[in-house]
């Protein structure tokens, strides 16, 4: 079974829930509807034998709707194929957890929650994992300045603003061409 056949099988089984498919440099990506995400993931694990969840990450398309996008990387040890599954999420939506399918998703989803602020429905222990409980921001969002924002939690932790001095530079999200997306120093 090749990854292309896997993509065809998903399309055949889920029909309209598959919004788009993409092949780039031998990597196959399937965009699915968020409502059917959990069903697709379960089917991938049980029927298509993707027994290893390599990574869970997220994207912030600031200025677009829906704003966020979940990215899941799957691998099957028995057939050696990779598959990427994506689902768009708007700001007020929760994502169904896949930690019931792959226990490794537990901490991955906590990291996504910590850095991006996406919530996961049905997650057994949705707490921050890198920053401390009570930290008020989501640092990997595009509207969060790279130099940070000050925050204060007496006797727990605190943050200040790091001097950027004109750099390093941040990619400008939502630009129409590469010139508009050119990384530039930003002050928020």
């Amino acid at each position: 079974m090749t990854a292309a056949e896997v993509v065809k099988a998903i399309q055949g089984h889920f029909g309209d829930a598959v919004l788009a498919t993409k092949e780039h440099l031998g990597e196959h990506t399937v965009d699915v509807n968020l409502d059917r995400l959990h069903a697709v993931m379960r089917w991938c694990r049980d029927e298509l034998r993707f027994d290893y969840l390599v990574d869970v990450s997220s994207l912030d398309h600031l200025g677009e709707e829906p704003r966020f996008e979940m990215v899941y990387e799957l691998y099957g040890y028995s057939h050696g194929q990779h598959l990427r599954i994506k689902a768009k999420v708007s700001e007020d939506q929760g994502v169904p957890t896949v930690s019931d399918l792959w226990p490794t998703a537990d901490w991955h989803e906590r990291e996504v929650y910590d850095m991006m602020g996406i919530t996961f429905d049905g997650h057994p222990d949705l707490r921050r994992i890198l920053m401390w409980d009570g930290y008020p921001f989501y640092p990997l969002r595009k509207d969060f300045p790279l130099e940070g924002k000050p925050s204060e939690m007496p006797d727990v932790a605190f943050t200040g603003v790091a001097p950027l001095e004109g750099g390093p530079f941040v990619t400008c999200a939502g630009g129409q061409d590469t010139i508009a997306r050119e990384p530039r120093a930003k002050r928020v």
Partner: protein
Amino acid sequence: MTALEPIQRTDAAYDSKIEGNVFFTRLDAAINWMRKNSLWPMPMGLACCAIELMATGASRFDISRFGAEVMRFSPRQADVMIVSGTVTYKMALAVKRIWDQMPEPKWCIAMGACASSGGMYRSYAVLQGIDRLIPVDVYISGCPPRPEALLEGLMRLQRKIDKEHSLIEQKKELLEELA
């Protein structure tokens, strides 16, 4: 074969060959001499600098040549805190707390770019230098510094301790009361 000439010392005169005999020195010099040659480090290893710190402690570079081999993992027994690595905001207050637990007199070495200034991490998560929280005696450049650099920093700290008015500083409150 003639006996070797005794080494001339100006700060404190000690010769193991005349142990039991009397020798004269200033109390400051004696205290400083004892302190600087038995600095017990509190290894605050937070990132890759800690690997160089370990190398400094191991046989090739051998920090015990300078009397600082007794790494204490309890701050109550330590004299010098070697902050080696990136201090994140989440870790910063823990470092400060351990520093507060160390008894006086105490010194601090900021080892490497991160501990000195935040280094390459101009970001939301990293404290821009441990000197924002605790007083630093010696800064060591490098990313990470080589063990020789740490030893140089240690020797500079020893030179600094040598110049301290340890007795007056220690009895400051008593002397003020008497005066």
